[in-house]
């Protein structure tokens, strides 16, 4: 695909992803421009093993993580793990069953609360959650885009979703 076609096809999606990740709008434009510049520089090496959309999203998210020096390694132990374990008995049954919103919840209110709850995630967790849920990439595509193994992605998604669910549950009162 030519650069012009790629720019026409994906600028909106990339801007939305950058701003959704928390990059201020002005910087998001710079980030999108830098993403296409990186694509142009490496166009010959793009072998088509992933879709162009996955490739561009990968560049964008990795640059966003690097920009804030936020590409820390995922911790071996995260507070989300202990919080999750604390919900169960020794036999693995719920000791504190889930409370709070469900599918018929007020989504506008839930979206406002989600905005606050996203601040509690590590940047890698946030990137994994958003690229999977908001940007709509498959697990395989997310692994390619973020350059993580499927095992690592499962850990990131588990922690992200567990934290967000707990946070919404706490705020939904």
């Amino acid at each position, binding site marked *: 695909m030519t650069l012009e076609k790629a720019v026409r096809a994906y*600028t909106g999606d990339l801007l939305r992803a950058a701003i959704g990740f928390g990059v201020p709008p002005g910087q998001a434009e710079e980030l999108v421009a830098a993403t296409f510049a990186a694509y142009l520089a490496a166009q010959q090496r793009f072998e088509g093993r992933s879709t162009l959309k996955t490739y561009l999203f990968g560049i964008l998210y990795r640059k966003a993580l690097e920009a804030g020096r936020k590409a820390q390694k995922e911790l071996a132990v995260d507070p989300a793990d202990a919080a999750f374990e604390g*919900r169960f008995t020794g036999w693995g049954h719920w000791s504190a069953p889930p409370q709070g919103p469900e599918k018929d919840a007020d*989504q506008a209110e839930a979206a406002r609360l989600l905005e606050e709850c996203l601040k509690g995630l590590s940047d890698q967790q946030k990137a994994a959650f958003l690229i999977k849920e908001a940007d709509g990439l498959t697990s395989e595509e997310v692994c390619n885009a973020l350059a993580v193994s499927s095992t690592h992605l*499962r850990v990131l998604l*588990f922690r992200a979703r567990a934290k967000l669910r707990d946070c919404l549950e706490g705020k939904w009162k």
Partner: protein
Amino acid sequence: MTPFWSCRETSRLIAEGEPSFWARLHLLYCRHCRRFRRQIRLLGAVARRRAGELALPDVGAVQVRVLSELG
């Protein structure tokens, strides 16, 4: 060590996004885990809604700018 069909393992697999056959079977008779799954699904729906409502800069202007810088 808890059974692989326990609430703990079922909800973990749901949060990871890959519920196994045993987890899906568990969901048939466990209302708490079903509620957990509905909440995880709600997170996805809300994330998509949030993405759709973000205020974006003028996409056309950004396209022109990018192409003029790189073209």
